[in-house]
C-alpha cells in the first residue's frame, strides 16, 4: 500500500479522534507515539489535529516483558516526553496493534512519568491475536489476514505498508 492511501487512512483516524475528543469534552489533549512506526503515524496525526504541545515519543525497550529473551535494543531513540503527564488527556499512537503487549508496556512507562487523566489508543493497523484485554479506540484499518501473515509499516518517508508471508522478523509484540 502506497503513501497516499496511508495518508488517507491517517486523516480518517484524525477525524474520528476529533469526534471522540469532542464527545468526551477534551479540549487540550497531548499525544505520544511509540517508537518507531507509531511515531511516524503520530507525527501526521499531531499535525492534522493541530495539538499545541510538542509530540511525545516512547521507547518501551525497558518495559518489555520479553527482555530476558531478546535483550536491549540501543538502536531505538530514547523516550522523550516534553510535557507533564500528570492529569493530562493522552492520545497514545502505535502502528500495529496485535498482542497488546506493546501497549501494556507503554502504559506502564507512561505511569512512571505521572498519572494521566485518561489515555485513548489510536492504531493504524489492527490485527487479530490479542493476548491482553486491550482495545483500540480508533483504528485506521483492519485487514483480513491469514494465520501467520505479517504486515508492517516502513518509513518515515515515504510511509509504506508491506504485506507478506510469515517471516522470522515479523512483529514480535
Amino acid at each position, binding site marked *: 500500500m502506497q503513501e497516499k492511501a496511508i495518508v488517507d487512512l491517517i486523516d480518517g483516524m484524525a477525524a474520528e479522534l476529533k469526534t471522540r475528543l469532542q464527545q468526551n469534552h477534551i479540549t487540550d489533549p497531548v499525544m505520544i507515539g511509540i517508537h518507531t512506526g507509531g511515531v511516524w503515524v503520530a507525527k501526521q496525526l499531531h499535525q492534522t489535529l493541530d495539538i499545541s504541545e510538542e509530540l511525545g515519543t516512547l*521507547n518501551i*525497550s*525497558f*518495559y518489555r516483558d520479553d*527482555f*530476558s*529473551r*531478546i*535483550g*536491549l535494543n*540501543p*538502536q*531505538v531513540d*530514547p*523516550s*522523550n*516526553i516534553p510535557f*507533564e503527564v*500528570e492529569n493530562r488527556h493522552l492520545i497514545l499512537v502505535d502502528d500495529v496493534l496485535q498482542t497488546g503487549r506493546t501497549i501494556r508496556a507503554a502504559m*506502564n*512507562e507512561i*505511569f*512512571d*512519568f*505521572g498519572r494521566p487523566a485518561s489515555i485513548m489508543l489510536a492504531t493504524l493497523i489492527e490485527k487479530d491475536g490479542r493476548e491482553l484485554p486491550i482495545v483500540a479506540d480508533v483504528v485506521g484499518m483492519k485487514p483480513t489476514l491469514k494465520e501467520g501473515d505479517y504486515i508492517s509499516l516502513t518509513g518515515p518517508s515515504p510511509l509504506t505498508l508491506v504485506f507478506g508471508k510469515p517471516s522470522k522478523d515479523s512483529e514480535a509484540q
Partner: protein
Amino acid sequence: MMKGNRQTNSKGQLKHFLSIDGLKRDLLVEILNNAESFTSLARQGRSVKKVPLLRGKTITNLFFESSTRTRTTFELAAKRLSADVLNLNISTSATSKGESLLDTLHNLEAMHCDMFVVRHASSGAAHFIAKHCAPHISVINAGDGSHSHPTQAMLDMLTIRQHKGDFTPLRVAIVGDILHSRVARSQVLALNTLGVSEVRVIAPRTLLPFDARALGVHVYHDLIEGISDVDVVIMLRLQKERMSGALLPTEAEYFKLYGLTEEKLKHAKEDVIVMHPGPINRGVEMDSAVADGKHSVILEQVSNGIAVRMAIMSMCLGTHQDADMEDTV
C-alpha cells in the same frame, strides 16, 4: 559449557563482565550505546526513576575491599533497574569467622542470587568466583587487586565519547600510579580496542610496570612533554594503601613533577578534558583549580558510572540464560 572467552556465551553475548581483555570492539560499543539510553532516563523528567528490567532479580554486592563510590553506584544502578540488592560487607561477615570464600558463595547461591558484583584486593578474584559459581549466576568485576576495573574503564569511555564523539583521532594521556592501577590497565585495553590514535602513560619509573610498553602505549616520564597536544588527560589516584617501600620521595615532590596545574594543562589541546576516577587527593595529583575547572568532567564520570553499570547488569542478566540452555541441548 561456554566456549572461548569466559565472559560471553555461545552467541557472543555478555554473561560475566570480568575484564576488557578479549572483548570485541562491537561489544564495547553496544555497552556504550545501551549506557547512553540509560543516561537519558535521568533527563526525562520522570516521577519514577526506575525501570522494571531486572524486577525479581537479586544482585549481591560482594565487597571484600572497601569502596564508597563504586559500591554506591552499583547499588543505585541495580535499584534503578528494579533489582533487589544485598550488600555484603565481608570483613564483618562469616569469612571472618573462618568460612571459606566458596562456602560463602554457595550459601548465596542457595539464597537464589542472580548476580555477584565482586571487589577484592587480589587479582583474579572475580574470575575465580565466575569459574566456581553456579551456571545461572553472572559475575561483574568491580575491581580486583591491580588487575582490572572494567566498569570504571567503560564509564570513562562513555564520558570521552560524549565529549569527543569519534575515538579514532584521539590522543589520550594517563598520568600517575600506573603500577598499582587496575583502572589504568583496563583503560588502556578499552582505548586500544576502541581504536584511539595514541595512548600515552606518564609516570615516574618507580610507578610503572616493567613491561609498560607491552600494553600498547607510549611511555613518558615528563608531564609537560606527555600531555602536549592530547585530547584527554586521565589522572590516577596515588594509591597510598598499595604502596610498599619508598616508591616516592614525598607527596609535595610528586605534585611538583606530576601534579596537574592549569599552567601545565595549557600544553594540551585547547578543548582537552580532564578525568579522574576519584577519590581525588587535591594538591597531590591535581590542583583544585583543575579539578573544579572548565576542563574537568569528573562529576560527569560519576553520573555515567550509574548508566554504564545499568547497561552491563542488564546485558549480563538479560540474554545469557536462554542461550546457555540452548548450549546444553
